[in-house]
Each structure stands twice: as structure tokens, then as C-alpha cells.
């Protein structure tokens, strides 16, 4: 099969490649990136210091990486998909032994230049891995138990490793991304309904093994006033901040709620709160629209790709991206419990930025090499 790839591989001139780049997508990413830098700047009350500097550097470095990765042949990702997955798992195992602990969980590895969070990398690895997995399987085989069991095991391993860190939020996002591809590949609806029912039945059991703080977050979600000064504080204050922003917001650097120290993660998970307070409903809609455009472009690239790998990857990544955004925003507006999920590009955090830019790089290479058949 690899042989046929090399036989069929189309040659592209550099000009062809430049022409094939989706500049619209690059511009959208750049705009969201700029907004994010200004938002982080605002969390530091208008001082160009530590977080802003770091965030700006990371954005520029990873943005550049995204552009470079765009020119990597998509067949490379196809061939290395399982390796990528294995590296992800190895890194997650490494966390167990050499990880850095912070506020009760062990998620990071110190890589000198940055603290890497392998679970963030796993978010992309799982999509690449599944896209390759379903690339070859015939539609009639998908329902067989063999092809049902394998991906479930592939999905459960990283989810288990991430949950035990403990990091429920990221585990849910990984599971969600994987399930999206399984769905796209055409697995029968009944399996989804069955597993949904099983989950519902086992929910009491799942809750009993959750960490106390996770339990309290979920209970708080159902009733924020249960503990208004403890676990419910973040949700209440986040809602006040967003609500008081009104139609047009309080203006750049003018947010009065977000400064309060009760939002300890205002530059990571609660960055949307701050943005929404300062730019109001209109600003929030603009930001959401930018994300929608980003997802639309990715789906479009998938649509015009020839190979199933590229299609599945783009659709899968677009769905995952949507999931990240939805979970984050729904969380800060009080629609979902606080589980700890960053807003792509906007949130402060190197690993999250790295994984999103890596994901986008692969999307762009799908675009540039869209005529690559990859052994179909």
C-alpha cells in the first residue's frame, strides 16, 4: 500500500503549493490570535508583562510552525499516524513517572523550553490515528465486532491515562474527538444509543469514583448557590462578569469583574469571560463567528480532499475544535460544569496552542496536497 502511494504520488511545484494555500484560513487564525494577545494583556490590567509576553511569543512561534507544517505532505501524517499515537501514549506514561504536579494533578513534563502537557497532544494524535484507521476499512466491515473493538481500546487507553492525572476535561475532549470520527465513519446509530444508555445507568458508579473536587464541581453546576463562596463562586462571578458586559461591553481594559482574584484561571479557562465582559454580546458574537468561519473552512478543505484520510481528519478536527469551543464557552456561561477546558488559541497555555496549530498544519497540508490519493 505504501508502495502504491509512492507510485501514485503527484508532484507539485512550489508555485502550485503556494496557490493551493487557504489564505482565508490563515487570516482567521491570525485575527483570533491577535484578539487573544489583547485579552491576555487585559488580564494583566494593561501591563505588557509575563503572561502577555509569553502568550505572544508562543502564538508567533506556533503560528510559524503551523505555516511550516502546511508544506509537509499529507501522506507523511498518514504513514506516521500510529507512531504519532504511540508517542502520545508514551508521553502520557512519562507523565506518570516524571511529571510535574501542580494544584493536585500531574499533567506536565518539563521539556526545558516549555512544560508540555501530553494530553493536549493526544487530542490531535487520536484524530490522526482514527482517520488512518477508518481510511482503509470498507463501509460494510465497519459494523463488525473486530472493527468496533479495536478503536474502542485505542480510545480508552489515553482517556484512562488522562482521567487518572486527574484531568476530566481533557479526557472528555479526547473521547469526544474520537467518537466524532467513529460516528463519521458510519458506525451504526444503535451503538451510540446503547452506549449512551449504559453511560446513563453507570453514572452513579462513575460519580462515586470521581475526586471530591470533581464531584463538588458537578453538584455545584446543578445548583451554584449550594456553595456560593466555594465551588459555586467561579460560575456565579463568571456569569455576573458576562452579564454585566451587556450589548457592547465595558470597553477594552475596563472590565471591573474580571480583575477580581476569584477567577484564578482568568487567563486560561475563563478568558472568554473577560473578553465577553469587555466587548459585550456583539464582541462575543464576532468571536464566535470567527470560530465558525474557521470550522467552516476546515470542513470545506475536507470536502474537496480526495482521500478518506484527509476527509476524516478534517471533519474530525473540525468537530473536535467545535467541541473544545463549545465546552469552554458553555462552561463559563454556566451551561456545563467547570471541567477545565481551554478555549482554542485564546487561552493562555503552550501545549494547547501547540496542539491546535499542529492540527491546523495538518489541515493545511490536506489542502495543499488535496490531490494526493493516499493509496485509495
Amino acid at each position, binding site marked *: 500500500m505504501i508502495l502504491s502511494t509512492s507510485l501514485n504520488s503527484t508532484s507539485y511545484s512550489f508555485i502550485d503549493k503556494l496557490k493551493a494555500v487557504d489564505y482565508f484560513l490563515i487570516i482567521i487564525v491570525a485575527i483570533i490570535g491577535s484578539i487573544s494577545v489583547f485579552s491576555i494583556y487585559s488580564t494583566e490590567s494593561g501591563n505588557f508583562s*509575563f503572561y502577555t509576553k509569553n502568550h505572544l511569543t508562543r502564538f508567533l512561534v506556533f503560528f510559524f510552525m503551523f505555516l511550516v507544517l502546511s508544506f509537509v505532505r499529507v501522506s507523511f501524517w498518514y504513514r506516521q499516524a500510529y507512531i504519532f499515537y504511540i508517542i502520545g501514549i508514551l508521553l502520557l506514561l512519562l507523565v506518570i513517572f516524571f511529571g510535574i504536579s501542580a494544584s493536585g494533578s500531574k499533567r506536565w513534563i518539563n521539556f526545558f523550553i516549555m512544560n508540555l502537557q501530553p494530553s493536549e497532544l493526544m487530542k490531535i494524535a487520536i484524530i490522526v490515528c482514527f482517520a488512518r484507521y477508518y481510511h482503509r476499512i470498507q463501509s460494510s466491515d465497519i459494523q463488525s465486532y473486530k472493527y468496533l473493538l479495536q478503536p474502542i481500546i485505542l480510545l480508552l487507553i489515553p482517556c484512562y491515562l488522562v482521567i487518572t492525572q486527574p484531568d476530566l476535561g481533557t479526557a472528555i475532549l479526547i473521547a469526544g474527538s474520537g467518537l466524532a470520527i467513529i460516528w463519521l465513519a458510519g458506525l451504526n446509530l444503535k451503538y451510540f444509543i446503547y452506549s449512551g444508555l449504559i453511560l446513563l445507568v453507570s453514572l452513579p458508579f462513575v460519580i462515586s469514583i470521581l475526586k471530591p473536587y470533581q464531584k463538588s464541581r458537578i453538584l455545584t453546576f446543578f445548583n451554584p448557590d449550594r456553595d456560593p*463562596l466555594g465551588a459555586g463562586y467561579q460560575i456565579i462571578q463568571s456569569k*455576573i462578569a458576562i*452579564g454585566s458586559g451587556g*450589548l457592547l461591553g465595558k470597553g477594552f481594559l475596563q472590565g471591573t469583574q474580571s*480583575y477580581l482574584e476569584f477567577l484564578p484561571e482568568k487567563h486560561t479557562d475563563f478568558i472568554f469571560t473577560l473578553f465577553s465582559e469587555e466587548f459585550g*454580546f456583539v464582541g462575543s458574537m464576532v468571536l464566535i463567528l470567527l470560530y465558525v468561519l474557521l470550522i467552516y473552512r476546515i470542513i470545506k478543505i475536507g470536502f474537496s480532499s480526495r482521500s478518506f484520510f484527509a476527509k476524516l481528519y478534517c471533519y474530525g478536527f473540525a468537530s473536535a475544535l467545535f467541541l473544545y469551543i463549545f465546552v469552554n464557552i458553555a462552561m463559563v456561561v454556566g451551561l456545563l460544569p467547570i471541567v477545565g477546558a481551554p478555549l482554542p488559541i485564546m487561552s493562555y497555555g503552550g501545549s494547547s496552542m501547540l496542539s491546535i496549530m499542529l492540527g491546523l498544519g495538518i489541515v493545511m497540508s490536506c489542502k495543499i496536497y488535496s490531490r494526493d490519493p493516499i493509496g485509495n
Partner: protein
Amino acid sequence: MIKKTDNLNKNKIISRRLFVLVAAKIGLLGIVTSRLYNLQISEKQKYEVLSDKNRIREWKTPPQRGIITDYFNNVIADNQRVYQVHLSLEEVSNFNNSIFKLKNIISLKDDEIKKIYEKKEKSKPWDTLIISENLSWNEFSKLNLYLHELDGAKPVLSTSRYYPYSNDLVHVVGYVGDATTQDIQNKKKIEENFVPGLKVGKIGIENSKDSDLIGNHGTKRYEVNASGKKISEISYNKETQGENLRTTIDLEIQQLAQKLLKNQAGSICVMDIYTGEVITMASSPTYDPNKFTHGISTKDWNEIKNNKLRPLLNKSLAGLYSPGSTIKPLVALAALEYGIIDTKFKVNCKGHDHPYELYGERYHCWKKNGHGWMSMRNAIKQSCDIYFYEVARLLGVDKLSLIAKRYGLGSKVLEDFFSEEKKGIVPSTKWKKQVLEQSWYLGETVITGIGQGYIQTTPLQLCLMTAQLANGGYKIKPNLIYDKEINLDTIKSKIEIEKNKSVSQNILKDHEFKYYERLYRNPNNLKFVLDAMYGSTNEQFGTSFRSRHKEDKYKFAGKTGTSQVKRITDQDRELDLDLEEIEYKSRDHALFIAFAPYDKPRYSLSILIEHGGSGSKAAAPLANKLIKKILDRHELREKIRKDLKNIA
């Protein structure tokens, strides 16, 4: 190859499934949007009220620093009650007016007012400004009297750092000052517990142990009204005090050491030769750490900074000096351990007219008329240079360097505890090649044998070296903070086991030693060297004979050292000037190392007087007084040790 029809089929499935997924996404997006609409448009009024009219305010209350004591529980870094005035910016109607009124009540200088305005520029409208950190009681009571006229001003009872023995311990304990942006970025504990006006350690133990000392800040949540006035306290998470620290320092000996060093530049270190406890680490001149607590004035700072005797330099561990003759016991030991010579080896010292010659270069002994025929014991006792030129030549610099490093030279004594500690230099042929990119000359070996040339040591290293010689040749773990893991009885039994162990084959090779492991090949070599040091102090013609104790229980053994700071020319030798006639900067450094009591050694010490002249005249006499004090306090220290052990 997969069939074409299947491909089409698969394509169709994926597209259909995607369609469902997109539809679901649109639905979810609808929910989020309507939620935002709900929050920001429909219920805007409600949240605006919540946000503006009835806000919850959070104040962080400063943590209390842990107390630092000496070994005997004397407080050496304390917290003192201070009176302050804070200004809550939200409650101030007219800032200029308030400052003007305050200026009349408490005496504020113009530069202080300038600083307040600068601080105000940087703060947010809801912040609290600290107007004065340290008010006198008079000012404080006056302030309370006029309080009704001053909106937003708050009299506050706070605590600040106070060092009761101001100058005596500054190089050990250090001082605190306002946290800078860098401090906050570098230390997580500071970042987590930062409050405006927080003091953090700048140097010394205050800096090294900051994370333990700082404690946790408290959190007060208030409900406030639109004008920022407190309505009610909702919750108060009380601040906690940082860990209290017990150091290994003996305050009384430290104070005596500082007194002995008064008006001179120098250092005195005292160490327990088994536990490695640093009992004294004095550096002179000193300065007052209390001046830094509320920000030092420019005048005071310049005075400290421009003092020629460099009070800011912690000479005990950051001052580098040639060890001079204090290295000789080590040179002798190295030669014996490698079997280069035996103790009967003799060299004739013939005075300045017939110096030691090597490749046309001439090397002199300090004694003008020469020592005559010297054996090893006599050469150590009378500190004959010619003898050690010859021994060093025979030994070679690399073997000497290996033994010197083994006994504590060339590496940081307290590891990374003090950022300013220096490693010093123990030269070897390899070192010279790597660092200076030159090859080694035999002449350099010769002068290394009397502790001159490239070799550089700190006084604390010399103290550790003496300790590890005096305890019979075992590696110890120096420490400055009381550590219950370091137990005298355990150490002694470990040493006993090591003593009876057969000597390992690579004892003479470069090798990492574990704590309390034996460092020597033949115990008789060590015994010989220690006995020669005894002779140096307690027998006639010994270089520190005049500083000896006659009473048996105070008897100690030592070795003097005089380290040249510049090359002695033939002209200098001719002139043979008295100390007072030489320019201060050109005078020799005086050194002395010793251990006591001689029959059952327990403590080691090193003394250094910068530009003090000869070791036997300037440094050794101080040891006499110091050792008496150390041994007089021995019983008491052991009692405390026992008490602490029982607690543990």
C-alpha cells in the same frame, strides 16, 4: 484495491454523517448564543446591579513570616508590631486633598510623597495604597484623632521584620525588602501569596528559605456598596505564619567573633567536626539589616556600598583568598598518602642567600636566615616554605589537587544554599588546560605547595577542611539550619564502622565520597599531620606558640597562614618593612585554622584577617579567646542537642 462502488458508498456515508454532525453543531451553537443573549441582553440589568451596586471585594491579608532562632532558641529574626496608614482609593473623594491633609498629620517628606504618587499611577482604582509603613506612636495616635476628616485613610496594625542583634548576623540571616517583579516571577510561593507591601528575603537565610518562612496569605471577602464602602464581611480565611527555623548558629560565639573582627575586614568560621553544624559564620565589617526592612535611604546605602572594606561581601563564603601555609598539612598528608616521601624526609633551608632554585627561578622561604635541616614535623610546625616547595615538586599538582578537593576545597560548602557562595579554585594541569588553555609549569606546582598561585579558597572551605582532618578523615555534611536527620550518635557509629572497613582499592583515585565515608588510606598519616599541627601551637618555635592555651582542657592545635596579595620583589625583601609601613592594599592576608580540644577534637575553626599581616601575629591570637568560649559552651550545646533529640 477497494472497490469503486464501496468508495462511493463510503463517501456518501461520511457526507451524510457530517451533515448530521453539522446540524447538531448549529443546534448547540444556538443554545450558547441564546444563553449569551439571555445573560447579556435580557438579564443585563440584573447582572449590572450585581456587578456594580453590590460587589464582593476580596482583600488579601499579609502572611506572617516565620521566626528564625539560633541553636539555643534565641530569636535572631523577629516580627515586630508596626503602625501603618493605608489609603483605600475607592473611598477617597479627592486624592490630592487627602495627601495634603495626611502630610500635615504625619510628617511625610517630599520624596515620599513623590513615591506615593508614582505608586498611585500604577495601582487600580480599587486598590489600597500603603502611605506609611512605619509610623511612630505619636503620629499614629494623632492620625486616629483626625480620622473622621480623612476619608479612605485607615490606621493599620501590622507586623514587620526586626533583627534584634542587628549587625551581628546579617551575613547569615540576611534581610527582607519589598518583593520585586522578579522575586514574584522566580518564586512560586511568593507569587501565590503576594499582597501589596509583602516583604521577601533578599539575601541570606531569609532568601534561601523564603518559601518556608513566608507563610500563607489570608483572604477577607467583603460586600461593598457602590461607593466602595464595606457593608459586611462575608468570610475570612485567616493568614498563617510561615515555618519557624532553628539555625545551628551559636549567637554568643557569633557575637564574640564579630567583636574580635571589629574595625578589620575578615571572617571567622566555626564548625562541629562531626555534625557539620556551622556554629559561627562571621564576616566583617557588617551593616544593619533593619535599615532595609522599610526601604533603605540612599545615604545609608551609599555608605555601605562605598565602604572600602566591603561590608556587603560575605567574606566567609564569597571571599576568595590564597590559603597560604594553611594548606601545608594537606600537602604533607597528600605526600604521605601517595607514599612519595616518608616523615623522615629532610630538606635544608638555607635562608635568603641560598633560595630554592628551579629552572633558573628562585623561590624564597619567609624566614630570612633559614630553618636549617627540616624534617616533615618540623616543617609543618615552623612552616618552612623550602621544605614544601620540594615536597610539592615531588608530589605533583594533580595528586595534591585530588586530595585538596577530597577534603573540601574547590566546591561549595553549603551547596546551593547561598546563591553568593563561591567555589574557589583548586588548580590542576587539566584545569589550566581547560580554563586558561595553557600548559602547566613545574614552578606553579612549587608555589601551590605553599598555598600561593592559582589556588583560591573561602574561609568556610578552610574550616571544613580542618574539620575533615580533625575528625580523623571522614566526609561530613555542613549545614546551617538545624536538621533532625543529622544525629551525632548515628554519625559516630557510622564513622566507627568506616574505620574498621578495609580500605577500598581506589582510595587514591578520583572518586565521589558519600557522607561519613573515610577519605584516607592510612590512619597514621592523618595522626602524624594532626600531631604536627599540635606542635605548631604548643611547642617552642611553633608559629602559633604564643597563642596557645596552657590549661589542658582548652589545648588546641592549629596552623598559621600568611597569604601574599602581590609578588614579593627582591627589593621588598631587601627593605623588609614593618606592617605599618606597607600600603594597606599590599599587606598580606593573615590566616589561621585550628581544631579543639586537642585530645578529643570536636570543633574546627578558620580565621581570616584581610591585609592583617602575618597569620601568627594577626589571626592566631583571636583563636585563643574564641576557643575558650566555644569549649565553655560545649556542655550547654550538648544539652540542647539531647533535648532536641528527645523531642524528635
